[in-house]
């Protein structure tokens, strides 16, 4: 469904991604982990076709992004790490504003998405007046508006309380069951374990681990996800 071949990204003369290569089948969920500055957000931008790589290619269903990027983006839902919402507008207005659907359908879809994330009560509130966790949920709601085939979520649970994290997780598991391919990033793998089937660990822009969840957990003697991540990162140094 999605494949990345030799993705390279530079900021000036500094390379932040060094030839990242992997592929995902439809319905698979990839957890992307690594320390700060390892290149997770940059890689997610590229996979969501929101930024171009300096080298390498991204393919969706075998179609090379590039001149087809605009068409392929229609099938992608993207929630960047920063809150990409208009603070001056209400939640409802943000959902309508970012929707690709015609007005009437967009209104129905906005209500449906808001309801699935327990945002119905917040629809009339200005985004600027919401807490960080609430904004994060609205940020995810925007990504879900177009019923995407690929969801790219950069730290989707950051700042969200436990109750709503569970709600979001349930929704994403349901999306996975429906065959939506997902790539999610985070610092701690524990929270994402119920959702992900694959794990990629980045360190200094290089892939230091890519495999299924079971082989990732095997890295730690006791099968603890946090310790497995530490071990993977430690062995990379």
């Amino acid at each position, binding site marked *: 469904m999605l494949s990345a071949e030799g993705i390279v990204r530079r900021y000036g003369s500094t390379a932040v991604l060094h030839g990242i290569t992997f592929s995902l089948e439809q319905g698979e969920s990839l957890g992307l982990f690594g320390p700060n500055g390892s290149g997770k957000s940059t890689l997610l931008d590229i996979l969501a076709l929101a*930024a171009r790589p300096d080298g390498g290619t991204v393919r969706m269903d075998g179609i090379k992004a590039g001149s087809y990027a605009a068409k392929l983006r229609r099938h992608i839902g993207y929630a960047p*790490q920063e809150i990409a919402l208009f603070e*001056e*507008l209400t939640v409802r207005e943000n959902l309508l*504003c970012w929707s690709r659907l015609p007005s009437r359908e967009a209104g129905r879809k906005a209500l449906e998405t808001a309801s699935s994330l327990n945002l119905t009560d917040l629809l009339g509130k200005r985004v600027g007046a919401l807490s960080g966790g609430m904004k994060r949920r609205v940020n995810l709601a925007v990504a879900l508006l*177009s019923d995407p085939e690929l969801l790219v979520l950069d730290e989707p649970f950051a700042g969200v309380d436990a109750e709503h994290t569970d709600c979001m997780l349930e929704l994403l598991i349901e999306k996975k069951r429906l065959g939506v391919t997902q790539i999610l990033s985070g610092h701690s793998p524990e929270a994402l374990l119920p959702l992900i089937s694959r794990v990629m660990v980045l360190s200094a822009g290089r892939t230091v681990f890519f495999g299924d969840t079971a082989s990732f957990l095997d890295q730690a003697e006791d099968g603890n996800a946090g310790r497995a991540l530490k071990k993977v990162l430690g062995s990379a140094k």
Partner: protein
Amino acid sequence: MRFMLYDLKRMFSGKALVIMLLISPLAVIMMFSVIFAPMLYTAKGLHFKLAVCDEDGSAPVREFINQLVNSQALAELVAVYPVPTTDLGRQLVESNDVSILVHIPEGLFEDMRAGKPVEITIFSKSAHALEAELITMTLESSLYAVGKAQNLMESAKDFLVKKDIASEAAEEFLSEATKKAISEYMERREILGKSGTVSPMGEYMPVEYYLSAVFSLFAALAMLPVIHYTAADCSGAILRRGLVCGQGSLRFYIVRLVSGMLLVFLVQVMLFPSSLLLGAAGSLLGGSYSTRPAATIAVMLLSSLCFSSLAIVISTWIPAERPALWTGFFLVLFMAVAGGALIPAGALPLWAETIGKWLPLRISMRALSLSLFNYNRGLFMREALRLAAFCVVLLPAGFLGLHGRGRGA
């Protein structure tokens, strides 16, 4: 379309901004009606008769009155009739043959020379209060200017006497210099050009220039909210989300350009009724304004497009929001000073005046001034083309900047 509507809603969501938009034109109207309008009417429409009773009879005062009577400059403002006695002057006022009688008492010039306080009396009926007020203010400032000049010339005469110049020759110098000073003072319009306007303060003030300057300055200041929103969107994740949500660089650019244009246009929108009012007032009061509302709208649209695209250029080529805002603010300040919106262009150093001629604020001011007051197709088209040329450069520069920011996200 939906994206554009929400972008407009964002642009007008700031209460302070909306208040500024509403208040600034009102403030301008207040300024216009309280200060500028009397000047306009004084210069272009209001014409009245003035009787002067000169009991002083000194040569400089006679010269001053002579200049008043024969002045080409004041011909369209006031007709001056010397009268031998105050009684006759009062009769003329009572019978409405003249609006005002100015009484210059005996010994006025000698008192001025001696540094004593002097007093000129003005008689008028309440129906002519405006004219009386204008003449009072004009005489006050004139006496102040003449008094100062007189002191300087007296000092020069004393200096000549001290340097062993014959006192007759020094007196002659004083007399000639006084005559010349009065002549220069009375003919300021010729020096400043026919379009200069006599203000109640007794100074020539080209109100045509300042009215367009105020609106152009506000239009340029309206770039700041556009810079704020565009820079914030470009430096955050909005642009990246926009790409993924189908709001690509071009659509984003067009939406922001139009929102910015509308904001700048609204700041200037009061110019249109002003233009109609000026035209109507000119016809009623016998003025001679050549106003073209269609040209006013055209230049408002062009300058809105120009300032909106300039705002996008600033916010996309400067990497962070705060530096972009400061750059925008200082650019407006520089344009206001060098473009002659804060300081009249004639008072600027040559280099600033030269640069100012090529700044969009100055060009917008000139074009507005022409469309509101002295429409001349050739001159107007020249300024309009200059604004269009700015747009031709700024529009692609803004798009490239935004596109580059999208690529680099």
